């Protein structure tokens, strides 16, 4: 996904002279081609996340379209004051890029865990929050963020995430149907999509066929897609590698309560806790029960309870 990010960035910078890329001293070697091509439109501010955001805000005030890049935990929590005051409050078109959200850097410790990035960014009024699930969504969504007249946050993963197919185009704010099915729907938040598709593959042999929807945009959430799903199924299973507060689950619950929709919402994701123990990402997903097996189990259970009956 990082390769896709660099590709998209290069194209954007080529087409739009307002694009400036700032990093908080991260991305060794990743941006060499960009630096060679765009020179002063690459700024390494050093290990100084406050200034990373403030400099981006200053550039945006002068009409530029800055992207600020750091590790997700250092991009969001650390300069939160600068994000809310210098970018959010004046509604500046700054794209904040959090590399390695969720538990991407699981074995680097709690310092590098960012299950809270989506929630923190969602708290900033006017912030668009995007979590692409595969390299295609990264390539598709980043240029769309350039057109947003306000701040945005994009969480990006590592290298080598698998791509998936969908008939639905990649449109900011619109969920994509990855699998047709019946009875219940699994809603993947961003990079959980491959795990959810893995679960769907396992279930196919058992004749349990959940709809799979990919929500790459967490804020604003696609209420139209949720409305349509509520007409089709009784159970929504939200799978997120994010805090139970302020992510897709929270958005779906808010939608359900505001609209009075009669659907059950089940969440699979990490608890509101610091993840200790130096566990690998896959192990964490097992421990916290939001990996492919857990998704398959929940769908099976819903099928057994009869939750799969059609509306």
């Amino acid at each position, binding site marked *: 996904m990082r390769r896709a990010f660099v590709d998209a960035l290069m194209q954007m910078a080529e087409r739009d002279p307002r694009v400036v890329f700032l990093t908080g001293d991260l991305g060794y070697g990743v941006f060499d081609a960009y630096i060679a091509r765009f020179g*002063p439109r690459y700024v390494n501010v050093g290990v100084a996340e406050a200034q990373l955001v403030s400099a981006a805000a*200053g550039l945006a*005030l002068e009409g530029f379209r800055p992207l600020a890049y750091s590790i997700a935990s250092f991009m969001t929590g650390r300069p939160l004051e600068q994000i809310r005051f210098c970018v959010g409050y004046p509604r500046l078109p700054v794209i904040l890029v959090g590399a390695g959200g969720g538990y991407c850097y699981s074995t680097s410790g709690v310092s590098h865990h960012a299950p809270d990035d989506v929630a923190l960014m969602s708290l900033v009024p006017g912030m668009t929050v995007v979590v692409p699930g595969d390299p295609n969504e990264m390539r598709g969504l980043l240029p769309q963020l350039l057109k947003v007249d306000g701040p945005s946050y994009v969480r990006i993963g590592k290298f080598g995430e698998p791509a998936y197919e969908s008939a639905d185009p990649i449109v900011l704010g619109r969920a994509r149907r990855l699998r047709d099915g019946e009875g219940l729907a699994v809603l993947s938040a961003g990079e959980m999509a491959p795990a959810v598709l893995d679960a769907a593959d396992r279930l196919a042999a058992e004749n349990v066929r959940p709809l799979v929807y990919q929500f790459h945009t967490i804020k604003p959430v696609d209420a139209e897609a949720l409305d349509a799903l509520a007409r089709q199924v009784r159970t929504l299973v939200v799978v997120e590698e994010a805090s139970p507060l302020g992510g897709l689950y929270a958005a779906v619950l808010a939608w359900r309560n505001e609209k009075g929709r009669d659907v059950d919402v089940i969440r699979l994701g990490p608890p509101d806790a610091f993840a200790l123990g130096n566990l690998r990402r896959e192990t964490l997903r097992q421990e916290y029960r939001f990996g492919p097996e857990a998704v398959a189990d929940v769908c099976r259970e819903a099928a057994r309870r009869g939750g799969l009956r059609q509306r």
Partner: protein
Amino acid sequence: MDAALLKQKAREIRATCLQMSYDGQEGHLSSALTAVDVLVALYYGWLRVFPDQPRHPQRDRFILSKGHGCTALYAVLADRGFFPRGLLREYNRERSALPNHPCIHALPLLEFSAGSLGHGLGIAAGMLYGLRLKGSASRAAVVLGDGECNEGSVWEAAMFAAAHRLDRLLAVVDYNGIQAVGRSDDIMGHTSLEEKFRAFGWAAATVDGSDPGALLAAMERAPFEPGRPSAIVARTRMGVSFMEGDVLWHYRKPSREELQRALAELGARPIYEKA
């Protein structure tokens, strides 16, 4: 404008700040009064501004980073014709263009909002980086408080500005020696701001901040060294004898008697009429 006229202007602006604090029933008077001479030197001297076209692309950028001293900024902007003087009556009213911390949504001719400390320098440095990319010769000035220089973000910004050789950046520290609960030199030890800016790669000077003429003369030497941003540590005063050096005036609003006494001492009237 010569030095005597700058001093007279500073007296009128102080009188205006006092009246606004009284009318608007809001404190932070000391923070405004000590910034007056600096703002007068900037807005009647150093800054290239276009009051009838506040967003003119060739303007110099200005950010009052210590936003709580905003009555001084509002008064200077009104006096320079950026908006009608009568608007000063609206200071700190509900839905006012002039809230007690500057807001770009309320007053869009400002470069930036303020209220949270430690942001102005970093923003201005980003703006200057952008201005250089655009090939613009515009400069930027930022007024910071000495208490504000406790914020780490000020020093991240200072490093950035020096690293990128932003020598069109001028930082003026309103070194009034007072912050919210005491004297700056006591709270965080020896402030040594001139040395700190130097150590961060800036050129710096300490100036008598109660003399707008001296301030302007110092500003006009900027950049003090080519390739380095410039910092002026301005040793400022409130300019009203019975308030001088008293932390209480960070909070207190003047009584009618205190207002009259201060105006009499200044020998100046506010620049706006009461409604």
